[in-house]
Structure formats: C-alpha cells, structure tokens
C-alpha cells in the first residue's frame, strides 16, 4: 500500500465512521451550544436544561435503538470504525440508547427536584453530557487507548459533579476523595495497558486477542505470562474502580453521602451501566477473536462504497486481519469439531477436552470476575446493615448490585469455554443487559424519591422517614415498591433481572458459577434485612411527634415523576418479551460464530 492509498483509506474511513458516530457528535454539539450560551450570557433567556434535553433527544433519534434491536442482527454486521478504535454493533446501539434514555429521564429528574439551580445549570448539564459522551465511548471501545480515554472522559466530569454542592465541606471532601482515588486507579490502569501493549505489540483488542492466542500455546509457560497477568489485573483495577467493586469501592459511600442525590443517581446508574458495558467489551475483547471482516454487511454496504471506491483499503484490511483470520480458522475448526462431538443434548454441559490458549485467558478472567463479584456482593450487603443515612445505604446497595451484575459476565465466559457460545453465552450476557435496564429504573427511582423527600423534609436520615406512610402515602408506596424490587421480590422487575442472572449461572454449570449462584442466592437473603428496615421505618414505625407535616402529593409534577419511574417496575412482569428480545439481539454479535 502506498502513501496515496493510505490517505484515501483514512479519508474514506473517517467519512463513513462519522456517520456511525452521529449520536456522540450531537452530544458534543450540545455541549458546545451550552458553553456558547454561557459565554454569551444567554442562559437567563434560554433554559439550559431544554437545550440539553433537545440535544439528547436528537441524539437518541439518531441512535435508532428500536430500529436495530427488534430483529436479530445480520451475521457479520458488526464492524469497526475509526480504523478499529471503536466498534459498531448492536451492543453499542443498546448501551448508547440506554444511556441516552437515562439522560432524558435524568434531565427531567433534575428539573423536578430543583438541583442544579439556574446559575449552575449550564455547568451541570455540560458536565453531565461530557461524562455521558465518555460513557458512550466506553460502550463501543475496541482499543485500549480509547478505553482509557473514555474512562477518563466519563470520570473527570463526575469528580466535579460530586463537588457540585458548593460551600459544603462534605461535598468538597467527597469530590477530592473521588478525584484522588480516580487518579490512582487511572494511573494503575494505564500502567497495565502499557504492559499489555508492550508485550502484545498492539492496543487493538482483536489483534491483542489474536496475539494472545498464538503467544501462549496451552501447556507451555510463556516467559511473558507474568507480565500479561499483571497487566490484566491492573486493567481490572481501573474497571473495578468504575464499578465500585470491592476492594476499590471506598470512594463510593463517601461520595454518595457527600454529593447530592441527583449526582448519586447519575453515578450509580449511568456510570455503572457504562462500566459494565466496558467490562463486557474487555472480557469479550481479550477472550475471543471476532470474525468481523468476513461478510460485508448490508447496512454498511453503502458506507463501504464510499469508503472504498477502488478497493483501496482491501490490502490494508487484509494485512491487519491476516493474523486474526489465521487464528480464527483454527478456533473455528476447533469449535466445529467440538460441536460435531456434541451431538446428543445430554452432553452439552460437558467441559471441553482440550484447552486452547484463549480458553485459558477466559478461564483467568472468570476466576478474577467470580472472586471480585462474590466479595463485592457480600461486602456491599453486609456493610449496608449499619447505615443510618439513606444515601450511604443506597451506596452500599449499589456496590452489592455491581456484584450481582458482574456475575453473568462470568457465566457467559464459562459458557463460551464449555463449547456452546451461541446462543448460550449471548443469553448470559443479555441477562446482564436486562438487569442493567431494570436497574436504571430502580436506582433512578430510589434516588429520585430520596431527592424529593429531601426537598420536602430537609433530611436524608432513615430515622426521619419514620411513619412517612401517614403523611405521604403515595410516595411511600412507590419507594416501598422500588425497595422490594431491589430485593428482588416477585412480581417486581428486580425479580426478573435476578431470575435471568441466576438462570445464566445455572446454565453455565461449572464449579465457579455454581459457587457464585449460591453466593448470589444467599446475598439476596442478606440484602433483605436492610431494605426491609427502611420499609419498616416508613410504614410501621410511628412518626416522630416533632416533625413538621410532610407535603408530598402524588398529584403533582414530582409525584407524577416518581410514579412514572415506578410503574415500569410493576408492569415489566406482565410482558418482558420485548426487552428480552432487545437484550438478546444486542448480545448475539458479541460472540464470534454468529
């Protein structure tokens, strides 16, 4: 390939990539518009939140989630863009859509609850959308450098958001703690990335997976093994920090207590969802070699034509994917042999006879994830017991839920190892997506109630909620519903989420996942107590005599908002097929062989 061809390729690639990148561009544009309003002092005349809402809404229409997710993906329609930095598949579309939907709900929530005030609004929404942009990148990252940039892009605005309540010592302390922890974790992660990149000679995830597959043939000990393991663990540190997984969770309760409930909702939902998406990307990225370039997909065919007028990029693509294809062939043939062996369904649960090096990589990730999620889940639930502040309690509940949500990743990797990647593993990953979608409503609802009650009664202590059902029955019923859903009591949506996760764990049927299943089951019981305590305080305990009456009617805009967030939790049980299909379609392309 000569210089001319390279230039042509880059131009073509960028032109096509920008098309796939429209929602992110719109979000960026919105940020610029808001900053412009601030510069020209127009924020008094044009409400910033409307601009933000319009921008996010426009981005969502361009993201077109319902258009892509309703039908199973066309084989091979997943593709890389921006020269392999990002990847565009249904998983990207799902998370982009979910994050944007959350952004809409969140902007409405901040308007209902009144934080930020008019002066802060422009800064606040700029930061939120900036962070949102980073999160969208996290969901589509395909390159370790993009992963690092996306994590930082999502984190740095969060540090500022945590300290948004100006003049409050706790808030500033929370922001500082968050920033210091975040910087530390980012440093370690970057170090891990450099170790991996140095050893494998690339930062492009599929290339790295392909090199991994050839570098460490099973049975032999590679001299670089230690470096790779260390690098992998260090990258995991960064992810664990974003997930607030134990032992990198320390920032979470302090930040949640110090920051306002609105920021908590943002951190506990959007940031968690994006971190989980990234975890899946990294796990799949290192664990599989995709067969992306095999078939040229219809939706991208037009783009191909633009990008590739004279077949200029063919050579480049070929060079890049030669190695990948080679390994792929061997992997494919292995799976073929295995699948021909697995004829009677009785033997489906049988572990594979031979371990290839990617299986070893996956096994390593399974152990790390199982360990972290088991500890995170148990620790989060136990630590929540003694809490007296509702935001701190919900922080620990968030930590515990991060543990639950990591479980299906381990299940999915196990299913890939045991030789039925599709649709078994895809279903396991889809249970994660399902839970995340439910979790958006549960946690956003919980923090919305906390924020609105704070406005009504100026307190965030659990003991001050005593007997709330007498003075504010409607919102209490909603909050109780949300808490029961967080426990996972049927017929609420949280139950369905746990149900699909447990189903995935049982299907995986290996020792680590069964252990995880038992731990998950026990944790559901453990979690009961502290949620139930809040419910008890609100419904059974008598109200304190000296409390001024709490004014909170459901027939008001805040009331309607709370109801609107709670209703999906009740109604999902009636028919969750739609969401189930979407999540499954979003995951099918993740696993090669589709």
């Amino acid at each position, binding site marked *: 390939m000569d210089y001319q061809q390279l230039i042509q390729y880059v131009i073509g690639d960028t032109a096509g990539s920008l098309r796939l990148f429209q929602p992110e561009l719109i979000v960026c544009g919105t940020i610029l518009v808001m900053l412009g309003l601030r510069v020209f002092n127009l924020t008094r005349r044009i409400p910033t939140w409307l601009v933000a809402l319009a921008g996010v809404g426009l981005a969502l229409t361009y993201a077109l989630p319902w258009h892509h997710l309703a039908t199973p993906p066309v084989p091979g329609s997943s593709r890389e863009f921006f020269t392999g930095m990002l990847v565009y598949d249904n998983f990207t579309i799902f998370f982009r859509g979910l994050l944007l939907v959350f952004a809409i709900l969140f902007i409405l929530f901040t308007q209902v609850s009144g934080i930020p005030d008019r002066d802060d609004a422009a800064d606040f929404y700029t930061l939120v959308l900036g962070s949102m942009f980073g999160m969208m990148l996290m969901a589509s990252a395909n390159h370790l450098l993009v992963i690092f940039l996306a994590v930082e892009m999502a984190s740095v605005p969060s540090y500022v958001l945590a300290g948004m309540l100006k003049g409050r010592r706790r808030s500033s302390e929370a922001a500082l703690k968050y920033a210091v922890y975040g910087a530390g974790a980012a440093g370690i992660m970057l170090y891990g990335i450099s170790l991996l990149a140095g050893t494998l000679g690339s930062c492009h995830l599929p290339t790295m997976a392909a090199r991994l597959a050839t570098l460490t043939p099973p049975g032999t000990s590679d001299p670089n093994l230690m470096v790779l393991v260390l690098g992998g663990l260090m990258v995991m540190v960064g992810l664990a920090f974003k997930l607030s997984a134990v032992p990198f969770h320390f920032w979470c309760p302090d930040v949640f207590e110090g920051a306002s409930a609105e920021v908590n909702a943002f951190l506990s939902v959007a940031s968690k969802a994006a971190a989980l998406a990234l975890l899946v990307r990294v796990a799949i990225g290192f664990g599989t070699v995709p067969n992306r370039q095999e078939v040229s997909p219809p939706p991208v065919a037009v783009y191909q034509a633009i990008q590739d007028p004279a077949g200029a990029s063919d050579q480049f693509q070929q060079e890049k994917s030669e190695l990948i294809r080679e390994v792929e062939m061997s992997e494919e043939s292995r799976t073929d042999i295995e699948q021909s062996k697995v004829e009677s369904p009785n033997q489906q649960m049988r572990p594979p006879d031979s371990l290839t090096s990617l299986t070893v990589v996956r096994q390593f990730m399974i152990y790390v994830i199982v360990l972290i999620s088991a500890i995170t889940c148990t620790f989060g639930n136990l630590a929540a017991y003694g809490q007296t502040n509702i935001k701190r309690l919900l922080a620990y509940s968030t930590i515990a839920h991060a543990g639950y949500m990591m479980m299906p990743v381990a299940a999915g990797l196990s299913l890939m190892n045991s030789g039925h990647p599709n649709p078994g593993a895809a279903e396991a990953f889809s249970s994660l997506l399902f839970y995340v979608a439910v979790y958006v409503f549960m946690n956003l609802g919980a923090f919305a109630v906390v924020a609105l009650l704070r406005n009504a009664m100026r307190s965030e202590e659990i003991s001050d909620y005593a007997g709330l059902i007498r003075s504010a029955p409607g919102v209490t019923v909603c909050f109780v519903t949300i808490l029961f859903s967080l*426990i996972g009591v*049927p017929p609420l949506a949280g139950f369905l989420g746990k149900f699909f996760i447990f189903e995935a764990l*049982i299907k995986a049927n290996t020792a680590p996942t069964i252990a995880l299943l038992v731990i998950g089951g026990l944790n559901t019981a453990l979690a*009961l107590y502290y949620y139930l305590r809040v419910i008890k305080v609100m419904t*059974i305990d008598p109200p304190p005599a000296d409390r001024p009456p709490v004014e909170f009617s459901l027939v008001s805009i805040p009331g309607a908002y709370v109801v609107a967030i709670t209703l999906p939790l009740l109604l999902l049980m009636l028919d969750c097929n739609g969401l*189930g299909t979407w999540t499954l379609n979003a995951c099918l392309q993740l696993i090669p062989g589709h």
Partner: protein
Amino acid sequence: MMEFSPQHLLLWSLALPLIGAGLICLLNDGRPQRARTIALVTTLLTLLVAGRVAFMFPANGINLESTGGAFALTDASWLGKISGLDVRFSVGLDGLSVWFYALSALLSFCCVLLSWESIHERPATFYSLLLMLLCGMMGVFAARDILLFYVFFEFTLIPLYFLIGIWGHEDRNYAATKFFLFTLTGSVLTFLGLLTVVLVNFSHTGDLTFSIPKLTAALGPVGGHPMPLHLQLWIFAALTAGFAIKVPLFPLHTWLPLAHTQAPAAGSVLLAGVLLKLGTYGFARFNLPLAPEATAWLLPALLWISVAGIIYGALVALAQTDMKRLIAYSSVSHLGFCMLGLFALTPLAVQGGMLQAVNHGLSTGGLFAIMGMIHDRYHTREISALGGLARRTPWMALFMVFFTFSSIGLPGLNGFAGEFLLLAGMFQRAWMTTGPGGLGLKVIAVLAVSGVVLGAWYMLWLVQRVFFGPLREPHGTGHGHGSHDELGHDLKQPDRPLVRDLSLREIGALVPLAVFIFWIGLCPQFFLSRMAPALQEATQPAAAAWQARQTNEAADRQTALNPRPSVPVVAETSP
C-alpha cells in the same frame, strides 16, 4: 353464572380480589364503612365463584386428561419469546390444590367479617392488602407454572408483612420482620432449587419449560430422565429450605408463634389457615414427585422430624399462658400430623394428611377467629386473666367448644376423619416395613398417637380455664369495647351484660367454617375422592422408591446372612 365455563370462573376468582382492592383504593374516604363493604362484597363474590369452580370439579378427581391434566386450565404464553424460555401463564386446579383454593376464599370471607369493627386505623389499606393476599393465595394454588407459582408464593408475603407489621399487637415490629426474613430466605433457596430442576430438564430434553406437570412427568421415573440420587438430595434440600419454614417443620418453627401471636385476628386466621398449607402443598407438589428417591432416602428422618414437631408443639402448647401462642404451638403440632401423613406415603396416610391440612385451616382458623373476638372484648390474650366466659358469652363458648372438638378429632367432626386416616396409614407403613427400620417407624406411629392425646389435653385445658369455672374478667374492661356499644344491641334490657355475646356478624363469620367442619366430618368421601387420584400420582414414585429401598435392604441382609445365596439359585434354575 351457569353459562360461564370453569376456566373463566377461575380467572374471575383471581381477578376479583384485585379489582376489589383497586376499588377500595380509588374510593377511599378514610372511614371504614365503604372499604369494608367493598371488601365484603368482593370476598363474597370470590367465594361464590371459587365455590362454584370447586363444586364443578369432577367427583372422581380424574377424567382430566382431555383438559391437559388440570381442571379449568388456562394456558397462555407469557414470557415465551426470549431465547427459548417457555414461561407460561398457566392456571388450573387439580386434586391437590382444589380444596386449598376454595379454603382461601372461604377464610378470607370470614376474615372480612371478623375485622369489621376491630380495624379502625387506615381501613382502606387494610382491606386492600387483605384482598391482595387473597389473590396471592388463590393464585399460588392455581399456578401450573413454576415461575408463576413462585411469583404468587412470594406475593403472599408482602401483604401479610404489612398486615402483621401495621395492625398487629404490641411486638408486631419484630414479629413482622422475623416472619419476612425467615420465609423469604427459605424461599430464595427454594427458587434456586426449582430453577435447577428446570435446567436439569433442559439439559435432558432441550425444552426450557417451566410447566409443573411437564417437569414432574419428564423427571419422574416414568418420564425416563430421573435425576441421580445425589442431585435429588441437593434439590430436595433446596426445596425443603423454603417449604419446611412455611409448614413449619420442627426446628424451623420459631417465627410462627411470634407471627401468630402478634398478627391481627384476620392475619392469624389466614396465616394458620392457608399460608402454612403452602408448605405442605409445596412438599406434595414438588418434593415428592421431583425427588422421589431422595424422599425415600430421607424418609425415616423426615418422619422423625414430623413426630418431633407433633410432640414438641403439644408440650410447648401446654406451657403457654397466652391463648394465641397456645394455638400457634398447636399449629406446629397439627402440621406435624399433616407432614407425617404425607411422608408415610401410603394412600390412606397421604389422603389423611392432606385432608388434615384442610381441617386445620378450618378449625384453627375458627379458633383464631374466636381469639380475635375475645381480644376485641377484653384486650388481653392472657389465659389467667379470663375465666368462666361461658356465662357472659354462651354462643362464643358454644363455637369455641365446637372448634376445640374439631381440632382434637372428635368423631363426627372433620379432625377425626383426617387424623384417623393418617394414623391408620402410618401404622400400615410401620407394620409393612420389616427389618431394623420397621421398629423406628413403629415407635414413630405410637408417638404420633400420643400427640393426639396431648392435643386433647391442652385444648380442653384452655377451654376449661377460659370458658368454664368462676367468672373472671380483666379489670377495666367491664364496659366493653366502644365500638360494640355503637351497634346498640339489647339496649332495652336494663341489666344487659357489659360484654356482649357474639353479634350476628360474628356468628356469620363462624358458621361457614362450622358447616364445612360437619360436612368433612360426616362425609369425608366427598372431599377425598376429588383429591385421591392426584395425590396418588404425586406420591406414587416416592412410595415405589421406598419400596425398592426396602427390597434392596432385605436382599442385602439376605446376602449378609447367607454369604453366597446366588450360586445355588443359579444352579437350580439353569437346567
């Protein structure tokens, strides 16, 4: 109503309570009158519809094949499309569930009448929770799909938690929390067990079904994929965790006396009458058919646990000073009988055990109702504070004696039919079992009989101390309860008793129970014939597994006695 098919009636009986609960919430004006009227009408309608369904049930309990193995079956896809998952909205009745289903409706009706005047605080919430509980109870018995079953199973917890926690007595807070923690912890494990069953079936047949009859058929000995014993034991243990807490079996019963004592009268009645039966029902529905070999393996231990519950419950009941606590412990003892019958695995015993479960609902439901009436009048549950109430309240004493007789198994009443059958079946099992295991079973059977005697002792003792002897009333209650005076019965009598006897409303709450107590006592065949085939089907595999174990053990003993028994046999038969 005649033109409705049983399918529609069953669906209506599930929907009516929810509609009623919604109406109460919508039309709430803060006063009890409207809420309780709607609740009464709803429960009455539900009772009529449920009764109609129950009496349309085929008399011999069979001929259900044409309708998919269940009566009034409605089967619709629910969470079907996701990745081959086949969760269905499938409700229907079979012999196991039909009487529990009807009992739920009957007791709820009585409960509304019972709570008529004792609930002043937030009546609308109370009655709508009661109706939601009714929906959950009927649904759990009607569900034919594991996920649907579990949804209803857990759904019964939430209303009851609030019923105990808000309208309970002094220690309600602790009682409600303990109740919820115990039962939900157990049922999470049960759920994992059920999920494992579904996936084991999936690994065999490739069919991700949640249908209870399909799973029972596929994993039963006939279906061709019985699970290995060690897996059965794990599943049995997981399922037992939830059901044994619900029953409650002996060491796991500690939540029950507390919850019973602290719950409001309606809560106690439904808890004792229906919700404990969920455990018994769960064992019969899931444990025995899905894990027959594990049941056979654990059988002696299960029988010992049951009989320990019988004796322990009775002895602790004897020591109580609180009337509701006494009856709560009597429930532990009575449920021990039910489980003994179920685990004895002879057709007689199993029928007796399940009939006894229904009986216990009627008689203990009635007893708790009367305890509630006493509490309304005297605001005490202390046995020592009361005495000679028969003079004050002769009608109440009549009903009390009647329910006591039913509870201790007087011939002619329902308790006798159940206890006789299950003990006869137990003796049959004990004497059919030879070898060293037989002795243990005989001891169990004899101990169980002693439980009957103990039962008569504590119940009659309670009646004697509270209702007979010299009149004794707590101080300061002579003026009766404010709400009773409002009705103003017998005002023209100058020397009217300060505490009134039963009002028509209260009699109305007790009479339906009494009618069924007589009916089951005099004509148990009517009820037994409808449940016998389903019970037979559910327990047959476990009974066969037990028989096989016996035969194997006998053969082993033979081998031990006679080192080479097979050689001469071969020698004889070969020419």
